[in-house]
């Protein structure tokens, strides 16, 4: 597989983010040249529910992540609850049950940092609504590795704390509301 050609979008979100995802996925292209990895804080009991609703609304293929799932172009990958999701140099996704970070597992910081180290300037990281500070350190790492950073406009966020915290600590490439994120993902970026 052509790992070098893979464009990757990692979307991190916490409280309120499932609603945002539901407003984004119906408007994604059916056969894009990128893949999306969703890293959302949620209860383990909600795992299959999220996978089901995203599948119903999305034209893209939806793949629940298990150990060593191979990333492929044009699909949406969903991180399971209660595991950190990491990116391997082989193009595989790996899981890790080590200590929670920012009271969270999966931690958005962990996934952003790990993706940044491998995908560098082919990575776009998007941070959505949420009530804790997870994601900020990860976005800084994405920037340091020449990736592209988008933060949801806190004004458009259900719970503005998480995007606002990121904005206080780093300068993103774009600050967008939900429609803006949809337009960006359809722009061939």
């Amino acid at each position, binding site marked *: 597989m052509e790992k070098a050609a893979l464009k990757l979008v990692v979307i991190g979100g916490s409280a309120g983010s499932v609603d945002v995802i539901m407003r984004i996925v119906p408007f994604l292209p059916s056969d894009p040249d990128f893949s999306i990895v969703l890293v959302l804080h949620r209860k383990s009991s909600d795992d299959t529910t999220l996978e089901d609703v995203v599948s119903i609304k999305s034209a893209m293929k939806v793949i629940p992540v*298990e*150990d*060593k799932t191979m990333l492929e172009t044009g699909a949406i990958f969903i991180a399971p609850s209660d595991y950190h999701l*990491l990116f*391997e140099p082989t193009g595989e996704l790996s899981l890790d*049950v*080590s200590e929670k970070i920012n009271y969270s597992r999966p931690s958005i910081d*962990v996934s952003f940092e790990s993706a940044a180290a491998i995908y560098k300037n082919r990575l776009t990281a998007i941070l959505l609504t949420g009530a804790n500070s997870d994601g900020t350190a990860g976005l800084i790492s994405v920037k340091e590795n020449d990736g592209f950073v988008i933060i949801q406009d806190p004004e458009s966020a259900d719970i503005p704390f998480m995007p606002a915290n990121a904005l206080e600590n780093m300068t993103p490439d774009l600050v967008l509301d939900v429609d803006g994120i949809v337009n960006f993902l359809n722009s061939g970026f």
Partner: protein
Amino acid sequence: MTATDSEIEAIISTIFEYYGYDFSGYSRASLNRRVNRLLELGNYSHVEDLLSRIRHEPDYFERVVGDLTVNVTEMFRDPQFYKQLREKILPIIGTKPFIRIWHAGCSTGEEVFSMAILLDEHKLLEKTLLYATDISPDVLQTAKKGIFPLRQMKQYAENYASSGGKEDFSKYYMANYGLAKFEDRLIARMVFSQHNLVSDRSFNEFDLILCRNVLIYFDKDLQNRALTLFDDSLPNLGFLALGSKENIKFSVLSHRYQQVEREKIWKKLR
């Protein structure tokens, strides 16, 4: 500080050279995080300082092994998994005159004690031996004491109840000074020993092998090596149980094992 790829390689090769532990087949993203955590916890400013301590202090190295491997675990983790063990697997292996179970990568032992409780409630404990192994001698020292923080018991009691447990969970331990000490009669059926899935061989035959959330830290080649080791340790119709996001679908075992139901438990067919 953050270790570079070549510094990670240096750590892996030093550990192998001095102690024979081979971490080269570990998933790199996770191992990198463990190494960086180790550097942070030890306040190292140069990787060379860590390497030097590893070379000269075997006692310190034992702690390093514990820190490089992930030792986050809980009792009755994934209650639905334990429910399936309770309802589907124990009635089958319970028909045997003597039962051997292997917990590979048992960490601090919480899941071994969970299994002992299930066996006890099926009146099978007295004819069972639980072999519990881990790469890290440090965590085995904790596991064999059967003493866990009392503050976790509320969560464990909830897990136990969701797994189909009907008893008062607190009857299995004595609470004292913030600790919960589990009953000696549970510990009496356990054998703890150091075992390295990367380099050691099969040491017995088992009716059930549990290896939960260990293979996620291995790359595909090392996973296949460990799975072959389990295969060598299982008779036909023996059971293999893995973590909830682990799978043998694309492994060397896939065509000879059948998943029992929804949970990650397979039966060896041939």
